[in-house]
Structures are given as structure tokens and as C-alpha cells.
């Protein structure tokens, strides 16, 4: 089981989105993609999810089931919590009783045991995102693809979401490819941090995080982020982001 990008480029129309991407995610490994907005991180995730085809090169996803959590929850507004969690199971032909039982177990796991029968609009943003995470876990995903899943949430809910993902990655050894624009979030959740930058986006920097997860205190996270930003390429890609944001 392995997710690998071999010399992958993606061009949409005349604009290059990604170029010469070489990257792997091994079983049990958590890789965080960071980079300025518009550098093609999300496209990379789409390639991994198999909803977009690479223009050249090969994307190989040999993990069995792939669970995806998008930036927005993308729940079906007319389904209740449990049915939304069980969506992937239904499409795999799991019977109603069993898929609801499994959804119930997952709802408890992500802290939604009291919201089984709520429609999405009755849930807060953080709860909706947890439903989306449970939906990704329901198909017994071997790898999770997360696209800035907590970027729209406020600080408290965000930390809560990160705790959930950390438990999955650390305690259960789940493989994950996580897109984020937050260096500290990446440092907290990753075995390896990959910086993507430029037009088209390329991998400009890779950093293996050797420190065990339980030793990654907030102070350590900020220190490490500062350390990374002292690297020329990393600073450039993030400084670029700041000027472009100021311009817009």
C-alpha cells in the first residue's frame, strides 16, 4: 500500500497547476502539504483522490479505500447525521441496518452521539466537519486525504479537530495526506512536511519531523515553525503569500 506521485504535472487549459511532483505517502505515514494559497495543493489532493487525471506522469494510489474530507463539509442537506456518515457504506452496498450501526459507532468516536438525527443545518460548522470526517472513516479508509479541513473553523474548534486527526494518525497509525496553509498545524500532525510553491506548483522543500508526537508542545511548534521559516525557500514561498495577500 502506497500513494506515489512520479513526475506528475497537471495543466488545466493553458495554465500549469503542478509540475514535476515526486512524492510518496507510505503506510502509516502522515504527510502535510503546506504552501501559499493557489499553489496547487488542493489539485494535488484531487489527483490523489482520483477525481482529476494527471496531464503527465503517474499517480499511483495503492491504498484500498481512500477517505476524503474537503474544506467545506459537503454533507447532503436532506440527510440526517447518521445517513450522511453512512453515505460511503451505502454506495458500497452495505445493508441499512449494518451501515447505520457502524455510523452510530463512528458518531460516538467523533463526539456526535447526541446529534444522530440532526440535519446538517442544525449542526455547527465544527460538528458538520466532524460528520464529514466520520464519513471518510466509515469506509474503513486506509488513507485520509484532508483538504484544510479546519481552516474555516475558529481557534477552539480547530484545535478540537486537530486533536481528532492526531489521535487517528498517532494512535491508529492511519496514513494521511493533509493540506494546510498553517505551518504549526503541519508540524503538529505530520511525520513529514512538504512545501509546495510557485506557478506551476513544485515541491520546493521537504522536512522530516523526528520529534515524537507527544513531545510536540505549542512552544516547540512555534520554535520549529520559526526554524523552518529561516530556510530560504520556505521563507520565500510564505513571504510571497504575504505580499500577494496585501495586494489583493
Amino acid at each position, binding site marked *: 500500500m502506497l500513494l506515489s506521485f512520479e513526475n506528475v504535472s497537471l495543466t488545466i487549459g493553458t495554465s500549469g497547476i503542478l509540475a514535476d511532483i515526486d512524492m510518496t505517502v507510505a503506510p502509516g505515514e502522515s504527510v502535510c502539504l503546506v504552501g501559499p494559497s493557489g499553489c496547487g495543493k488542493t489539485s494535488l489532493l484531487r489527483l490523489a*483522490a*482520483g*477525481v482529476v487525471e494527471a496531464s503527465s506522469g503517474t499517480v499511483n494510489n495503492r491504498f484500498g479505500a*481512500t477517505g*476524503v474530507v*474537503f474544506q*467545506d463539509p*459537503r454533507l*447532503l*442537506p*436532506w*440527510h440526517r447525521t447518521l445517513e450522511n456518515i453512512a*453515505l*460511503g457504506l*451505502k*454506495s*458500497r452496498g452495505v445493508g441499512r441496518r449494518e451501515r447505520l450501526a457502524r455510523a452510530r459507532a463512528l458518531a460516538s468516536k467523533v463526539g456526535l452521539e447526541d*446529534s444522530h438525527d*440532526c*440535519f446538517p*443545518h*442544525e*449542526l*455547527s460548522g465544527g*460538528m458538520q466537519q466532524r460528520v464529514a470526517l466520520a*464519513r471518510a472513516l466509515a*469506509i474503513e479508509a486506509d488513507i485520509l486525504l484532508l483538504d484544510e479541513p479546519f481552516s474555516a473553523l475558529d481557534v477552539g474548534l480547530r484545535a478540537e479537530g486537530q486533536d481528532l486527526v492526531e489521535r487517528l494518525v498517532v494512535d491508529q497509525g492511519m496514513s494521511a495526506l493533509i493540506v494546510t496553509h498553517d505551518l504549526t498545524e503541519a508540524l503538529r500532525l505530520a511525520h513529514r512536511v512538504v512545501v509546495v510553491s510557485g506557478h506551476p506548483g513544485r515541491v520546493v522543500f521537504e522536512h522530516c519531523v523526528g520529534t515524537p508526537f507527544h513531545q510536540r508542545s505549542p512552544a516547540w511548534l512555534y520554535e520549529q515553525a520559526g526554524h523552518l521559516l529561516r530556510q530560504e525557500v520556505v521563507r520565500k514561498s510564505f513571504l510571497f503569500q504575504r505580499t500577494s495577500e496585501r495586494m489583493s
Partner: protein
Amino acid sequence: MGGLIRGSLSWAGSLTGVLLFAAFWEWGSLVYGSFLLPGPRDAIGALVELAVDDQLWSAVWATTWRAMSGFALSALLGIVFGMLAGISGTAGRVLEPVSTVLLGIPPIAWIVLALLWFGSGSMAAIYTVAVTTVPVTFAGAQMGTRTLDPRLREMADVYRVSLRMRVWDFYLPHVVSYVFPALVTALGVAWKVTVMAELFATDDGVGAGMALTRVNLDTAGAMAWILVVVALLLMAEHGLLRPLQKKMEPWRQSAKPSGAV
């Protein structure tokens, strides 16, 4: 309490409108005489007469049955083909002109054709209703299908959702909310077209009753039949379609005011 007052105020408003209309009607009848424009009391009197000699109920039943059959047929066909046209661009390009052509043919022309094809009877009325309302339901379903959030479609791709499940769990619930206003419109048209078709094609039903009042120069009777049609239409919309919509879309109205945070 406030809700009660607001509710009765809005009722009082509607009632004022109805009463104003009745007053205007009565005034017209006084000016033009009760032969050209019988007043509301004459119309209600005629209605009671119809009810007493049982003519009313059999006519109401015949007309309702025809209108609803034609309407159901058009709803079914419109939704199926509308969704097809919404999902597949090719099907859309093929079916859209057909729908436009159907929309352009006046109902009265369909009645003539239906009489030639099916002869007099219920079939002609049902066919005319279905064929004149199907473009409306078709357009509603097509619009609904096209406007499904592309992000949900991508989600369906990621979770490898089968076509059958896409239709049932993704498209249909979304389409329903688009189709209901179209269905309400179609139902109104269905009733009017049924009465018109009955005028020419059948010897029972509200339309046939109106044809009889024309022969007898019974203006009050015609007015009574008009009252019947309006009442039927209101009953079908508020007694059938609206409650059905509430039942089918619980996810729209069960909004708890910021209950879950």
C-alpha cells in the same frame, strides 16, 4: 399570542380582499342586470341547486379524476425527462426544442387533435392536460437537476457513488424543491385545460356542465361552475401539494433557531 394576532390579521386581510371582490361583483350585477352578470347570491343559489339534484358531485368527481390523472402523468414524464435532460447535456439539447414546441401549441389545438385521435371521452381530456403541462414540469426538473452543487457532485465522485444512488440521494431530493413551484403552476393549468377539454369532448364533468349552461343561457349556472373550479383548484393546492411538500422536505423547515452550537 403575537403570532395569533398576526395570523388573524393576515386572515382578515385576505378576507377583506375576497369581500371587496364580492362587493364589486354585486355592484356590477346591479348595474348590468342579473341576466348579463348574475350577482354572487344568484351564483350561490345556482350552486345549491346543482348540489341538490346531485349533478354537482358527479361532475366534480369526473373533472377531478381527469385533471389529476393528466397532472400525475405530466408530473411523472416531466420529472423523468427533465432529470435526464439535466444530467446529460446531449439529452438536454435533444429534449429542449421538443419542450419548446409543445409549449408553443395552444391547448385548444391539442383538444382538436385529441378529439380526432381518441374520440370524445375522458382520454381526450387527460391527454390534453398531460401534453400541455408537461413542458412546465420538465423545465422545473431540468433546472433543479442542473443546479445541484458541483461540490456535492465531486463528493459523489470521491465516494464512488453509483448512478442509481446519485439519482435517488443526490438529484431527486434537490430536484423536488425546484419542481414543486412548477407542479403548482401545472396543477392550475391542468384544471383549466380539463374544463376546456370537457366543454368539447365529454358529456359529464364541470366543462360539460358549463356547455349546458351556455345552451340554456343560464349565466348564473356558469358562474356557479366557475366557483366550483376555483374551489377545486384551491383545495388541490393547499390540501394536497403544500402538505406533500412539507412532508417531503423536513430538512427545510426543522430549523432550530441556533439550537446547536
